């Protein structure tokens, strides 16, 4: 398997120049194409910050971060936006747009990046994840599990190269958690690269790589 994500001595500092606060780093790691990587760690360990850097939602302070052909450490906001349109992201609290219905939320996953997509593709995707009967529903009426499946559909509509997941089961009940876990495992089996941040050690069972973080640094790689 070839390396898809290369992280080399990456750091991220917040605060002011006089009083910088370290969030991440320096960290180095490689993630292979088609792998399932789980980043574990306690609150404040820097795992979500690292994920934000990998997603291009935030900029590194130093170091080199390359995803595929995109050098994120040298990208401006426009290039980062383009990079984000090629990946999929799912969040702990779904982050669906409350003004749009279910299918519109899914389609926005493609539209926001400037790509057109067919309505039918969105409906088919929802049907695949057992939401075909609710494609016109107001997202406020969906359960937590349904919302997360809509978020997964939204992340997949643009045929991403990588799926980044930030605590995707953190707000779900056990049944929904299992559903999402199975979906992600299935997606990875079909070739999709997945990078997930979680507290949940159960994901370690389906992961190819497990990275443990503490105080912004990688303390263990398996």
């Amino acid at each position, binding site marked *: 398997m070839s390396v898809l994500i290369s992280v080399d001595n990456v750091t991220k500092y917040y605060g002011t120049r006089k009083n910088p606060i370290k969030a991440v780093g320096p960290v180095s790691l490689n993630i292979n194409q088609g792998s399932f990587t789980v980043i574990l760690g306690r609150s404040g360990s820097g795992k979500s910050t690292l994920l934000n850097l990998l997603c291009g*939602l935030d900029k590194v302070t130093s170091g080199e971060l390359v995803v595929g052909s995109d050098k994120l450490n040298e990208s401006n906001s426009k290039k980062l*936006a383009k990079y*984000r349109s090629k990946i999929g992201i799912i969040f702990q609290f779904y982050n669906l747009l409350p*003004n749009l219905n279910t299918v519109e939320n899914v389609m*926005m996953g493609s*539209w926001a990046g400037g790509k057109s997509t067919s309505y039918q593709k969105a409906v088919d995707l929802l049907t695949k994840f057992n939401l075909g009967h609710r494609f016109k529903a107001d997202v406020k009426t969906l359960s937590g599990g349904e919302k997360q499946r809509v978020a997964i559909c939204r992340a997949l509509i643009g045929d991403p190269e990588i799926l980044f997941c930030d605590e995707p089961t953190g707000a779900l009940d056990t049944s929904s958690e299992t559903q999402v876990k199975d979906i992600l495992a299935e997606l990875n089996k079909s070739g999709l690269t997945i990078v997930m941040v979680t507290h949940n050690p159960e994901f370690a069972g389906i992961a190819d790589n497990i990275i443990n973080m503490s105080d912004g640094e990688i303390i263990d790689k398996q």
Partner: protein
Amino acid sequence: MTFSSLLLVLKRQFTQKWGRFLLASGGIMIGIWAITLTTSLSLGVSDAIIDAINSQPIAREISISVTESGQTSYDQINETPKFIPLSEGDLQEIVDKYPEVLEVSPVSRLNFFVQTPAADKNIKCVEKNLEMQAQLASQAQAGGDVQVSTANMESGAESLSKDCLNINVSSNTFKRFYESNRTNWYGKQEEPAKNEVVACFKCGSTQFGEALGVEKPEDLVGKKITIELQRAPELYEGGKVLDVLDFNTPDTEIKESKDIELTISAVVDDTDAGIFGSNNFYVGYNYFQDAFKLANPDLNPSNYGTVQNTVFIDSYQNLDAVVDDLRNDKFLTLSIAQEIIKGVSTGFLVLSAALSMLGFIALVASVFGIINVMTISVLERQKEIGVLKSLGARDGDIFRIFLFESSLLGIIGWLLGISLAAAIGNLLSFIFVQVIENDPGIRANLESINLSSFTPSFPWWLLLGSLAISLVFTVLSGVFPAIKASKQNPVDVLRSE
């Protein structure tokens, strides 16, 4: 972001927050309402007045003169010009040269007396008038008691008015005279012949019909009256340059009376004459020459002419073209209609601009409201901004979302403002019609000048211009919040609750 997704976000935002949109666009609505209402009313009233003016014979009338220096417009005159009188032949040449010109006539006064049925057959009104003036002059010269002089004058005037009605003759062209009075016209509708006259019925305070014992205007037609020419027109030596300090004219006082019998060929009922009504008689130009000869027996009238003359054209639509042609031929011209229309248009433009300033003040005030609402919207929708950015939306996309939103405020405010202006404008128009219908006095005066209603005017440039103004104000108001929204860090806003 795709354009359709921008529109979708905007549509959903509007349908869910329409109350806020309406409130936020209130300032724009008031501003656009004030600007379009005042402008549309000004245009509507101004158009109605211009149409009314153009429907009057005055819109087909041009005053012409000739100056030594060839000035063609009163705007060019810095000092009193030297005039060259136009003879009767010169006036005929103008009629022959310009196909649009129907008639040209001198502007010159002529007065005559009409002997009443009660008058002594031997009375000579002109002589009686001269005697009375001479008596007054000698008393004043002798330093007599002013009260006695006044009493004598009043007594003389009473005696004169009992037997002799003093009549003014219109200085209009016949066509102009007919056009001005055709709705109140009885009798022949053509220029009176040599021994004919067109009479007014009431003639202002003269009460002509009553003095002749006639109750209805139409009963005057065909009656014979005897006139005495009282005052000759002011004529100047044809072709001679007149200096303003030496404006000599042959004598206008007629010293010898002459009875002329005329038949009334037509009558103008001026009982309810409006502001454009006529209180004058009309006779042919030959009587001007007769009067001139009576006052100046040794002079030939055909050698004399007039400084001021009136050209009457076929249609007001040719007015500008004929004025231009006359000016090219070095005539000093003045169209009262053109001047009034220019004044009306300018007046309403100034009025509209002044009132529109109130609208602009409302628009400026609304800017702060829109900035406020848009800033609140940005703060409320931080999570949405973060999600869209996480999905690949660029800063420019987020900027456009909020700019579209503020533009929508402008369009809503414009639509409401225009609709309100149209509704109130038409309501005012309706009230105006109701008011004049319930007041016969006002109605008669306005109908006499063909002004009985007006319609607020919303030309395309007013609609597009007000939309542009509305969009400029709202887009400018939305720029700062839109920039603020587009610069949001996605991580920060996704973290926010």
